[in-house]
C-alpha cells in the first residue's frame, strides 16, 4: 500500500485551459483507452485539440512555446471541467503530462473525485477571480502559481485568490489519506456488520 503523502501546497508553472464544459473525451479520446495500463497517456492529452489528422500542430496552448515550462504544472480552467465519462484516464493523462493541481470555476463530480484519489487538488474560485487569474497567466505565464490547501488560497504574481475544496477533500489531502484504500480497509469488521444488516445480500431469505 502506498505511503502517506501529505499535500499542503502545490507549486508550479500555470497552463491556461480556457473554456466551459471541457469533457473527458476531449481530454483523452476513447481510442487511447485500449491499453491495459495508464502509461503513455500523457502524450495523448487533448490530442484532437492539439493536432490535425496529419499530426500538424493546431497551435494549442499546450504546444505554445510561451507556455512551455519544466517541472510541475497547474491548470487554470473554467466551468464544469472534466464532465462526461468517469474515465480516470483523463486525470491520469493530465498528471502524466505534468499537471499536479487544477484551479477553476467548477469541476464535474466524478472527475474531481478521481483527481483526489491521485492527490491532485481541484480547487474552485469565483468567476471574477478565475477570470483575473486566467488573464494574469495569459499575460505572463513565466511565474510559479501556488495552490495552498492549508489556507485555501491560490497565489500568482502577487495576487491571492480565495478558493474552496469539496468537504473532506481538504482534510484528505492535508492528512495524506487521499488514497482512501488504507482508511477503508481499517474497518473490515464494521463492513461485515453493515453487510449482515442488508437483506438483499442473503436474497431476502429469513435470518
Amino acid at each position, binding site marked *: *500500500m502506498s505511503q502517506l503523502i501529505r499535500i499542503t501546497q502545490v507549486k508550479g508553472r500555470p497552463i491556461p485551459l480556457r*473554456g*466551459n*464544459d471541457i*469533457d473527458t*473525451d*476531449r481530454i483523452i479520446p*476513447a*481510442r487511447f*483507452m*485500449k*491499453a*491495459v*495500463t*495508464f502509461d503513455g497517456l500523457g502524450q495523448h492529452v487533448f490530442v*484532437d485539440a492539439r493536432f490535425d*489528422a496529419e499530426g500538424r500542430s493546431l497551435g494549442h496552448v499546450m504546444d505554445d512555446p510561451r507556455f512551455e515550462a519544466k517541472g510541475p504544472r497547474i491548470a487554470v480552467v473554467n*466551468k*464544469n471541467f472534466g*464532465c*462526461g*465519462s*468517469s*474515465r*480516470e*484516464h483523463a486525470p491520469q493523462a493530465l498528471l502524466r503530462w505534468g499537471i499536479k493541481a487544477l484551479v477553476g470555476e467548477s469541476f*464535474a*463530480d*466524478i472527475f474531481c*473525485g*478521481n483527481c483526489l*484519489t*491521485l492527490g491532485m487538488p481541484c480547487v474552485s474560485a469565483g*468567476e471574477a477571480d478565475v477570470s483575473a487569474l486566467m488573464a494574469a497567466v495569459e499575460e505572463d505565464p513565466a511565474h510559479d502559481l501556488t495552490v495552498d490547501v492549508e489556507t485555501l488560497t491560490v497565489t500568482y504574481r502577487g495576487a491571492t485568490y480565495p478558493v474552496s475544496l469539496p*468537504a*473532506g*477533500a481538504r*482534510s*484528505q489531502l492535508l*492528512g495524506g*489519506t487521499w488514497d*482512501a*484504500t488504507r*482508511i*477503508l*480497509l481499517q*474497518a*473490515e469488521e464494521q*463492513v461485515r456488520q*453493515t*453487510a449482515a*444488516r*442488508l*437483506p*438483499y*445480500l442473503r*436474497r*431476502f*431469505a*429469513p435470518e
Partner: protein
Amino acid sequence: MGKSLLEKVWAAHTVRELPSGQTQLFIGLHLIHEVTSPQAFQMMREQGLKILFPERTFATVDHIIPTDTRRRPYADEEAEGMMSAIERNCREFGIRFFDAGSGEQGIVHVLGPELGLTQPGMTIACGDSHTSTHGAFGAVAFGIGTSQLRDLLASQCLAILRPKLRRINVDGALGPGVYAKDVILHIIRRLGVKGGVGYAYEYGGPVLERMSMEARMTVCNMSVEGGARLGYVNPDAATFEFLRGRPFAPVAEDFEAAVTWWRSMASDAGASYDDIVRLDGAGIAPTVTWGINPGQAIGVDEKIPAPETFAPDEREVAQDAYAYMGLKPNTPIRGTRIDVAFVGSCTNGRLSDLQEAARVARLGHVAPHVKALVVPGSEAVARAAEAEGLDQIFRQAGFEWRLPGCSMCLAMNPDKLVGRQVCASTSNRNFKGRQGSPAGRTLLMSPAMVAAAAIEGAVVDVREMLGKKEGSRDP
C-alpha cells in the same frame, strides 16, 4: 419529517463517517467491464490487496467488443489484450464473468437489470459514468474511476460525500411520438449540463410513474449528462413486476419480503429536497441535439438558437458548437442531412427501443447514402428481438443487424464515424470526436427519430412520418 430514498439508502449502507467528513459507504453491487478495470487489478497485485466480497462483483465485456464477429483473437490486438486481461482477472480474483456467447453478455447497464442483479434500495457502482441507469430501480448507483474501483474490490466500500438532492417532477402526459429520451434531453436542456453538479436527481411525477422500467432507465442513464452523478426513480409496482422471475431476483415468499423492504426504501411523502423543479410533459417535443454537449438540444420543429439567446458563459461553447457542427444559428435542425444512423447503447439499446425503431423502419427503406446500424444492448435483447422478427424488419429496411456491445456510442470497437460524417444516434454523448472520428458529428435523438432520419436521409419529425404512413392511427 419524512426521508428520501437517497437518505434511507445512504443510512443503510453507511459503515462509518470518516474523519475527512466523507462516508465510508458499503456498495452492494459492483459491475465491471474490460476498459476501466485492468489497471485496478494491476494495482491490487502491486499493493498485495485481496478482494473482500468476490460474489458481489460481476463482469462483462462491452466497450471494445466487435459487433460483426465474435471470432478470437480479435483483429484489434489492443482489444484482444483487454479481453484476455478481464478473462484472466476474473479467473484469478474469483469474479463471475458474463462472457461473449454465454447468452448473458451485454452492455453492463443493460445486463444488470435484465439479470435482476439491479434491485431497489441497493448501492451500485461501476467504472462507468452511465451507472446512473440503475437508479431507475430506486438504487443509488453511480460511476467511479479506476482507483476507486480498486478500493471497492479491496474493501467493498467507497469514501464518498452524499450529494444534495433535487426533485424533478414531470407533470401531465407526453404527446404521441415523444419518448423517455426526449424527456431527459429536455431536462438537460432546461437545467444545463452543469446544473446537476453536486446533486442527485430524483425523477417523479405522472410522466415518470407511467413510464415502463426501460423508459425510466433511459431517463436515469443520462443524469450524468446533466451533471448529476446519480439519478433515480422511486420503486413501485412496475419495478417489482419487472424483477419478478429474473435470475438473480429473490424467489417465492422471499420475493414478497423483498417487495416489503423495497417499498420501505422509497421516498416518504414528507421527504425534504434541496431543490424542486417542475416541468410539463405536454410541452416536450421530439428533441434533437444540434451542438457538442447534450444540453445543446431543441425540439425538432425549432430553429438552432442564436448566440444572444445564451447566457454569457454559454455563448462561447455555442460558438464552438456552430463551427464544429457546421450548423448556422436561426436555421431549422429539420432537414439536416445525415450519413450514419446508430440505434443502440446503454441509453437506448433495450427491447422497447428496438421495437420503437422497428415500427418506423417498417414504413420505408434506409436512404441510399446512409449507413444504418442496429446494435442490441445484450444477447438477451438480441434473442428477444429476433423472436419477434425485429431483425428481419431492420434488415429488410436496409439496417445492419449487429451483435451486442457499446459499439458506436464511443467507438472503441471497429464501428466508427469517418471524417466529418453526421450521425443520428440514440446514444448519450454528442461530444467532439465521441463516435470515433476526431471531426465526426453526432445528433442525439430517440430510437424512433433515428430510424426516421435513416429513412429520410435527414433529420425529420417522426410524428409526421408515423401520422402519414400509419394513417389515422395515433402515432
